[in-house]
């Protein structure tokens, strides 16, 4: 059955997937132009109350749509994302299109080049609708740290969409884009995916080039997709993955055919469950949903194996030391000279630096710069930064050990469903603790995916996280797909 009925005068874009969109354009049931316009109409109607987009790129989108429509008219086979409307988190540089990182300090920054991941999406035919709101410099777990406006969860407007890729998750959840790109440094793709009820994939460190990604913490930053289905996540990953000479940290590892791998059976697969991820602080409804997801996979023939990740309770302090230390160095470049906002009426160079940064950065960014600078400063380097790097080794060894016994590990994505706007914004530490189940994968460099696994009594989505071995996205996509098909 064709799930979507598409005609140029009556378009249904709810739950629209990549293949449905591309096929409809290829078969001339609709056009890329009509699809883009339908999404802009949805944005026009819905985004006033959600706040997912910061900048729309209509000219760029319609130009690309026209190119795809001409291909379809000539009967040429469309590329994998041909005519698919997408959104890009505003931490990825787009040539000629304002890129703010959610910060006042970059409020009028126009990049002179494209991020590799965006360029690869467009080369595969994607139509970029615009740039998506996020926590300032991707620092946050609720998107309340955007310098422009917060994003609201489409499932419940009194709740946050998660963060920092809150705009990317909300746009997909509200069908304002078919897929989006986000970035994940401590959970920023997976946690908002869980909060908004969509799929969010963080690939292995090095799998996707970060060239053109505005740096937060370089040893932890990843780019990945937020989508409506697991298959769409596989299609986008296939498009953006692979070595890029412009990013020395992008790995020289072959990219498998993720889409073909999806359909392989999961029977006999060993799935790890770690008690450390079901400890105090886990909401009962989330626990029940994840446990029933585990049962579901068991009934499909997966073997459930208990594993231990004993250093998990130390992940949050380790992460927040390393991430802030790296951020303090990366954000030194915003000096009001080359591309960032400059304070007016300053008399000396030093005053210009200080006042430009004071005026340009928001409270959380300043807090993290201060924390990171402190952790790196003389006298505290060994006690904080070096110590955290050593514990990072221990956390990574936990996973190495566990993955000797299992193919994937199942956990909740977040200890709770989406919280309310303002609920944690005055207590930075309580906000940091919301990342407890996601920071570990960033620290170890392993891939992770969050997929919807039911909802709370208040109809808030719950996320199931599946973690995998380095460069083994195929397995976690396969498990995620098997679960998705079963429910």
């Amino acid at each position, binding site marked *: 059955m064709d799930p979507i009925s598409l005609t140029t005068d009556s378009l249904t874009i709810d739950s629209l997937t990549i293949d449905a969109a591309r096929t409809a354009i290829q078969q001339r049931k609709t056009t890329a132009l009509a699809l883009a316009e339908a999404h802009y109409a949805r944005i026009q109607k819905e985004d006033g109350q959600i706040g997912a987009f910061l900048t729309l790129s209509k000219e760029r989108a319609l130009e690309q749509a026209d190119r795809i429509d001409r291909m379809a008219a000539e009967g040429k086979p469309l590329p994998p994302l041909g005519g698919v409307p997408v959104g890009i988190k505003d931490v990825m540089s787009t040539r000629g299109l304002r890129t703010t990182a959610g910060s006042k300090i970059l409020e009028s920054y*126009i990049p*002179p*080049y494209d991020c590799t991941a965006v360029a690869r999406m467009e080369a595969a035919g994607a139509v970029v609708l615009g740039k998506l709101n996020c926590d300032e410099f991707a620092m946050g777990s609720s998107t309340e740290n955007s310098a422009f406006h917060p994003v609201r969860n489409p499932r419940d407007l009194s709740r946050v969409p998660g963060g920092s890729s809150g705009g990317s998750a909300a746009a997909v959840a509200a069908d304002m884009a078919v897929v989006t790109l986000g970035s994940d440094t401590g959970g920023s793709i997976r946690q908002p995916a869980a909060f908004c009820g969509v799929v969010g994939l963080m690939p292995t*460190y*090095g799998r996707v080039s970060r060239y053109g990604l505005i740096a937060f913490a370089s040893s932890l930053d990843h780019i990945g997709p937020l989508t409506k289905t697991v298959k769409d996540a596989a299609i986008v990953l296939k498009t953006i993955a692979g*070595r890029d*000479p*412009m990013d*020395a*940290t992008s*790995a*020289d590892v072959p990219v498998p055919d993720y889409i073909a791998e999806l359909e392989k059976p999961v029977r006999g697969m060993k799935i790890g469950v770690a008690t450390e991820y079901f400890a105090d602080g886990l909401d009962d409804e989330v626990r029940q949903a994840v446990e029933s997801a585990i049962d579901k996979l068991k009934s499909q023939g997966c073997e459930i194996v208990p594993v231990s990740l004993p*250093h998990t309770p*130390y992940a*949050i*302090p*380790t992460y*927040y*030391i390393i991430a802030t230390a790296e951020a303090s160095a990366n954000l*030194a470049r915003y000096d009001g*000279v*080359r*591309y*960032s906002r*400059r304070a007016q009426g*300053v*008399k*000396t*160079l*030093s005053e*210009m630096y*200080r006042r430009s*940064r*004071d005026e340009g*950065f928001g*409270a959380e960014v*300043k*807090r993290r*710069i*201060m*924390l990171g*600078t*402190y952790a790196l*400063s003389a006298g505290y380097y060994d006690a*904080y930064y070096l*110590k*955290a*790097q*050593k*514990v*990072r*080794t*221990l956390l*990574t060894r936990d996973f190495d050990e566990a993955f000797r016994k299992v193919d994937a590990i199942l956990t909740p994505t977040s200890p709770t469903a989406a919280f309310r706007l303002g609920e944690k914004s005055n207590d*930075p*530490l309580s906000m*940091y603790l919301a990342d407890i189940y996601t920071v570990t994968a960033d620290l170890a*460099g392993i891939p992770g995916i969050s997929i919807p696994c039911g909802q709370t009594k208040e109809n808030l989505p719950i996320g199931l996280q599946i973690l995998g071995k*380095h*460069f083994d996205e195929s397995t976690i996509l396969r498990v995620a797909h098997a679960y998705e098909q079963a429910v």
Partner: protein
Amino acid sequence: MKVTDKDVAYVADLANLELTADERTGMLRDLNSILEYMDRLNELDTTNVPPMAQVSDRYGVDESKAGSERFAYASREDVVEGLRKSLPHEEALANAPDADEDFFRVPKVIER
């Protein structure tokens, strides 16, 4: 209290931040609360545990090769415009808050 007013002023100075009096008070409170939580890392004995700065040297590399040989794929010829052309002058200056035709302009650095 671990962090004092003096520390906040010192670290702000290192980070090229000015911070208002209110911001300094808030920072003092937040840094102390966060660092107190981070001190739980001291529960772990990390003697003989090597620090981990990144993951790239551990996974997805050719293990038969040693050291920097593993990253030979990531190096390139040391030439001007090796991977892409340099930005044209006007593009490089386009986002500057203040520039002339050739240079970024900043307030006077040297007093005389």
